[in-house]
Each structure stands twice: as C-alpha cells, then as structure tokens.
C-alpha cells in the first residue's frame, strides 16, 4: 500500500477558499431556508446519520437478545417491536435516502454541470417531509412502537395488533413523498439541466445509476403510499380490501406492498453501484470498462426490478405458473448485476490500482455484494426458497446486499467525496483500519446467519433452540466489531472538520467535473457554466489540463 495517488497542496500555504457554500451565509435560518443543493445534502447527511444511530442501537439490542437461546433480555413482544423499529428506521429513514439524498443531492448538479437541481425549493420541501416523517417515527417509538415487522403484513397489522400501526404507516407515507420528490428532481435535472456538450453518454455512471433509482422512486413509491393509506383506513374503520374476515384479500396487500418494496431494494442498491463505478475508476486510473454496458445495466435493473415482486410470495399461495415466471424473471435481474461486477473487475485488470480508503470500501462492496446477489438467486429458485423462506438465510442475504452492499458503498462515497464536501482530509491510516474492521466485522456477523438459516432457524423470534447458540454468539461478537467499524468514521470525520489536512480541489486526481472546482465548492458550483469537451473518465484529458495549468503558472 505504499503507492498512492493522493496529491495534497502544500499544507503550509494552503487555505480553505474563503468564499464557499458553507461560509457564504451564517446562522440557523440560512440553513433551514436554504435552496442550495449542497446545504440540503448536508442537512440530509446529519439527519440520516441520526437515524442510522437509532437503527444501529436497535440492531445492537436484537443481537444482544440473541446471545442466549432464551428470551431473557427483553420480553418476546418487546423483541418484536425492537426488530420492527430497526427494520422500519433502517429501510425508510436510512437506506432509501442514504446515497441519493446526501451524495446524490450534493453531486448531481455538479456532475451534469448545473448550478443547482432543477427544483431547489422542492428539494428543501423533500428534506422537511423527511424530517416530519422522522418525527412521526420517533413519536411511534416513544408511544410504544409497532410490532408488525417492517412489512406491515395484513391482517396482522390491520386486525390483530394493538400497537401504533397508524402513526408508523403515516411516518412511512410522509417519508415516501420526500423520496418521490428527490427522484422527480433528479429526473428533471438530468433531462433538462445538462451543460453544453454533456451528452447522455458523457455523464458519469453515478448519474446513470441515480437516474435508474429515480425512475423506481417515482413509479414505485406512490403505490406503497396508497397501500399504506388503505392499511390505515382498514385499521380505523374496520373494513377494507385486505382483511379476509370482510372478504378482503391479504395477497392483494402482498402484491401491492412488494410492487414497491421489491423495486425499493434497487432504489437502495443502484445509487451504491454509481459510487463504486466512480471510485473503482479513479483508483485504477482507467476508464470504466464497458461504460455503455454499465450505464444500460442500471436501466435494465430498473426495468426488470418491476417484474419480480412476487418472489417474496412463493409460499403465500400464488399459483405455480406465477411462481415459475417470477422465478425466471428474478434470475434475469442477476444478469445486469453481474454485468456490473464483471465490468468493475475488468476495470481493475491492468489498472494502476492504489488502496486508499474509498477503494478499500469499494473492493469490500464487490465481494460482499457478489455473495448477497448470488444467494438472492438461491432464494429466487422456488425449490430452495420453500426451505429457506422466513429463515435467517433470508436475513443474511438481504443484509449482505443492504449492509455489505449499500452501506459499504455509502461509506466509500462519503470517504471519496468528503474532501470535496468539507475541503479537508481525514486520517488515512485510521480510516483504512475502519474499512478493514467493517469488512471483518460484517462477515463475522452475517456469514453465520447463512448457516443458521440453512439449519432452519426462523427469523423474527426472540428465543431459539440451544444448538444454534454457538453461531449466534459468533454473530453477536461480529456485530460488536461492526459497531466499532461504524463508530470510527463518525468520530474521525467529525475530527477532520477542524483538524484535517487541507485537501485542495482534486486530491484523488479524479476526472469528474466536481473535482475541477474548489473544495468546498461555491454556492453556484461553477464560476461559469462549464462546456463538456471530453468523455467521462478521460485521464489523459486530466493530464493535459494539468500540464496546461503548470505551463500557464510557470
């Protein structure tokens, strides 16, 4: 790891630019009423970190309870509430907005060469909706929580439980609109705000993957919204279309819910793909292999993603023919995902690879996402699914994709663009240590769960047979290591805000438009609107640029 491409300005003379988006205005109101996409991204970053913290604490409680076979740390119904709240908060208040609302908000206008997103006020509104939804979720938790699981399964949620289903449903409903508005804003920005010369195939792949995720947000989330409205109505007036006691159809709920919630997992992972493309290219000094294939595979995932939802329902009584078709379609989604993994691997091939922190996280992502994705194919096969459904195998599978995939990508992206966002570097060795710790802790936590699932341990129970204890102890021990891995970045990134080295405008020697402006950027991003005259990831262009600069300064 001796080789590095990091090039920082001379620390004795370097200064953070006096005029930037952080320093332009001061005071709480200048933040709360801002329409600057970078400030809104900062607000989002703070809020989702807060919810990640709550969700993480709940996960810690779950793992502690599962240390022993008996339900001894908390009562069984408390445990139900804890894992439900963990799921709800992590899915709707961390994973869905994680990369789009923070990194996406921050980068999208700069990557397409615009001064701001197309609808800045709508962008701010989306943050307020997120906060309102978050407050409702916290209210739900304070009022005693909800124990439906994050899936609100009917008629359990509408008929049999007396926990706070209505406030929880309302919270997700409101947060859903914040995600719709973010997606809408991205689509309009990408279509209408590109700078001169920025053709579709010159866009960074981060933009492509967020575009695909935005399509899913815009088309899927409203269906979840109306489904939750119907759940709420059914609970209040005690009649509705989901409760079989009144002639309703619980499967209808499953169809409507998963019509959103399966695409939602692509909402969560696609923006992560975008980060990986940027990072892998930058730290291998090569154009992403098969740019067009990677771009179109994002769109393909978005399209296929809408036609696989019933694989969540193989054991719920859908017809065999439906199961067959959905099983086939599910396996089709593996194709574009594999295209990405192969193309990133070929980008690494014969590249000049260096192992800075973002790259470590990205390589971790590639390994973990591959396992998560492949086990998804196991679950998509109807035969295996009947054995594995509702076991810890499923839990391990989606945590490999969501935590091993998305969270690693999120951390990779945060470390990659942190110098751009704040103008400062974080301690490199410590962050590399955190990345490795996360990787080890993650595997220790979730790999045993695959085995537990194969052995038949069901999910969502506080107690389990004693023979499963050894693997559960491994898993809880791993969760502790993982906790350290997540705490470290929060600490050193906060530290770096004041004490980090000055990063300069382009510490990684990356090619994106966002790296050609000062860090932190100006409120209007570019002094004048740029003209895109080269392909994305053109490192020769960057060298010529720098040679020109040296010549003109010299």
């Amino acid at each position, binding site marked *: 790891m001796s080789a590095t491409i990091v090039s920082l300005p001379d620390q004795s003379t370097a200064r953070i630019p006096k005029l930037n988006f952080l320093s332009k205005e001061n005071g709480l109101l200048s933040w709360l009423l801002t329409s600057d996409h970078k400030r809104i991204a900062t607000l989002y970053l703070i809020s989702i970190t807060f919810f990640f913290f709550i969700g993480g604490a709940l996960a810690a409680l779950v793992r502690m309870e599962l240390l022993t076979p008996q339900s001894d740390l908390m009562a069984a119904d408390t445990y139900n509430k804890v894992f439900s709240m963990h799921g709800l908060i992590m899915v709707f208040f961390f994973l869905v907005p994680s990369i789009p609302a923070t990194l996406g908000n921050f980068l999208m206008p700069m990557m397409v060469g615009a001064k701001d997103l197309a*609808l800045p006020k709508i962008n701010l509104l989306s943050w307020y909706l997120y906060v309102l939804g978050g407050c409702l979720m916290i209210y739900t938790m304070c009022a005693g929580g909800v124990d439906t699981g994050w899936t609100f399964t009917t008629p359990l949620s509408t008929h049999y439980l007396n926990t706070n289903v209505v406030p929880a449903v309302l919270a997700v409903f409101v947060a859903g609109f914040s995600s719709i508005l973010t997606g809408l804003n991205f689509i309009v*920005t990408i279509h209408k*705000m590109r700078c001169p010369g920025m053709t579709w195939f010159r866009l960074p792949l981060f933009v492509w993957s967020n575009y695909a995720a935005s399509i899913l947000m815009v088309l899927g989330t409203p*269906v979840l919204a109306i489904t939750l409205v119907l759940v709420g109505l059914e609970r209040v007036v005690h009649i509705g*279309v989901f409760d079989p006691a*009144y*002639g*309703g159809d619980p499967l209808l709920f499953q169809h409507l819910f998963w019509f959103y919630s399966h695409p939602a997992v692509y909402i969560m992972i696609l923006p992560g793909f975008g980060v990986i493309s940027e990072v892998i290219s930058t730290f291998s000094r090569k154009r992403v292999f098969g740019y067009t294939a990677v771009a179109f595979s994002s769109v393909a995932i978005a399209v296929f993603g809408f036609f696989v939802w019933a694989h969540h329902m193989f054991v719920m009584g859908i017809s065999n023919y439906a199961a067959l078709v959905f099983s086939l379609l599910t396996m089709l989604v593996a194709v574009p995902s594999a295209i990405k993994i192969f193309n990133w691997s070929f980008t690494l091939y014969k590249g000049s690879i260096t192992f800075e922190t973002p790259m470590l996280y990205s390589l971790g992502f590639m390994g973990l996402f591959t396992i998560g994705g492949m086990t998804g194919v196991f679950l998509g096969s109807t035969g295996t699914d009947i054995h594995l459904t509702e076991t810890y195998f499923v839990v391990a599978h989606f945590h490999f994709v969501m935590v091993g995939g998305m969270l690693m990508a999120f951390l990779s992206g945060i470390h990659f663009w942190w110098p751009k966002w704040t103008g400062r570097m974080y301690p490199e060795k410590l962050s590399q240590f955190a990345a490795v710790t996360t990787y080890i802790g993650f595997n220790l936590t979730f790999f045993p769960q695959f085995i537990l699932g194969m052995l038949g341990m069901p999910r969502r129970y506080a107690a389990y047979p004693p023979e499963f204890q050894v693997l559960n102890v491994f898993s809880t021990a791993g969760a502790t290591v993982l906790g350290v891995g997540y705490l470290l970045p929060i600490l050193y990134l906060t530290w770096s805000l004041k004490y980090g080295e000055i990063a300069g405008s382009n510490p990684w020697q990356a090619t994106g438009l966002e790296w050609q402006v000062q860090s932190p950027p100006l409120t209007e991003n570019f002094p004048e609107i740029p003209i895109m005259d080269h392909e994305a990831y053109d490192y020769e262009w960057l060298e010529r640029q720098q040679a020109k600069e040296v010549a003109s300064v010299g």
Partner: protein
Amino acid sequence: MSDSTTIAGGELAEAKEAMVGEHAAHPAYQRHHFESVAQQFDATNFAMWIFLLTEVMFFGGLFTSYLVMRNWYYSAFVEGSHHLSIFWGTTNTAVLITSSFTMAMGVWCAQTRRKAALVLCLSLTFFLGLVFLCIKGIEWHGEWVDQHVPGLRFSQADFINPALDQDIYKEYHDRPLTGGMASKTEEYFFLYFAMTGMHALHMVVGIGILVFMLFRATKGAYTDGHFTFVENFGLYWHFVDIIWIFLFPLLYLVSRHA
C-alpha cells in the same frame, strides 16, 4: 438543449420586454440557476408531467384493488352501484368537464395576456370545482342516510331485501343477494368512498391553489409572459378530471352494458 419552440406564441420575444433588474439579459422571473427562460419552462413543465405519473401510480393501487374485488364480488358491485344516483353522477361529470374547458381557456388567456379574461376563467373553474364538491357532498349525505357508509353506519338490509327501497326496486327489480354476497356490498362502498374521497381530496387541493392563483392573477401575475404556473396547474386539473372520467363508469355504471 432546451427547445425554445416549446413556448407558445413566440414568447421569447415577449419575454425580452419583461427585462428588468441588473441582469439585462434575463427577465425578472427567471430563477438564477437556469440558463434561459426556455430551459426554466421546459424543466418545470417536465417536472409536472413526472408528478402526474406518480399520481397515476398512486390511483393505480386503488384501481387494482377495485379490479380484484369487482371480479370476486360482481353481483354485490352491481347492487351497490344501483344505489348510487346516476343523475348526480352524470351532472358531476358534465360539471367537471366544463371546468376543464374553462381551465384550458384560462391557460390560453394567460398565454395571450388577457388579464380580465384570465380572472374570469379561473373564477369559473373555481366555481365549478365547488359545485362538484357540493354535489359530491349531497351524494355522500344520501349514503349516510341510507346507511351505506362502511365501518361507520352500514346496513345490508337494502341488499338482502331490495324491495325495502321502492324507488330503486321499481327501476331495477333487483333480486335479493344471499347473506355472504350481501355483506360484500360493504367492500363496494369501501372502495367507493376511498376512491371518490381520494379524488375529492385532490379537488380540494386544486381549489386551494385556484384561490391562490386568483388572488395573484388579479394583481397582474401570469399575464406578463410568465404563465408556467397556470399551465402546470392546468395539467393537474385535467388529470383530476380524467381520474373522474374513469371513476364514473367504474362506480356508477357497473351493469349498464347488459
């Protein structure tokens, strides 16, 4: 990138007249992050279409539920629909289509800078929207009186013994539903209230925005070449109208083709 021809009636030339302030090249209503008025119009208009797409998906969930329930409980849906008033339903359809016409005229008035006519069109649209809601209110009240409000005030008596309601019996000569199917009329009325209620909610929001636009239009807004808001609201209003065009046959005319 942005196509200036999408702005109707050579608006660019007119926009130049509106130039004020320090940016000599920009009219005052151009937001700082757009390169041109044409780009601004394009972007906001496109955003409105995407928003309507999300609305289609939102109502899509309701229509799907309706489809499933109607297939299962067709005879209950037929009986349920017989208890709605075709007269009021048709009147409301006419009212709403007329309001779409006045709204379209309003957009045209804004584009051609006719302030008085714009205010008139918006007022008419506002008035027709209110008429629609009042008629809807009359119908809902009728359902309350007849005990057809699911969950709150519901009785299956009319469906087990259709002769109870002589007006409707004379017209349709409905046969009694069996106990199992009669209870499913509650599902019909649940969907009826969910769908018309969600539609009415969109009407209320629309009428609220209409009041805001009326207030601003009387002060000369929208007729200075910057009519994007009126045009985009027009799209929303037509969309809400179209939803009703689907709701009317699905809820009122279930067995009419026979």
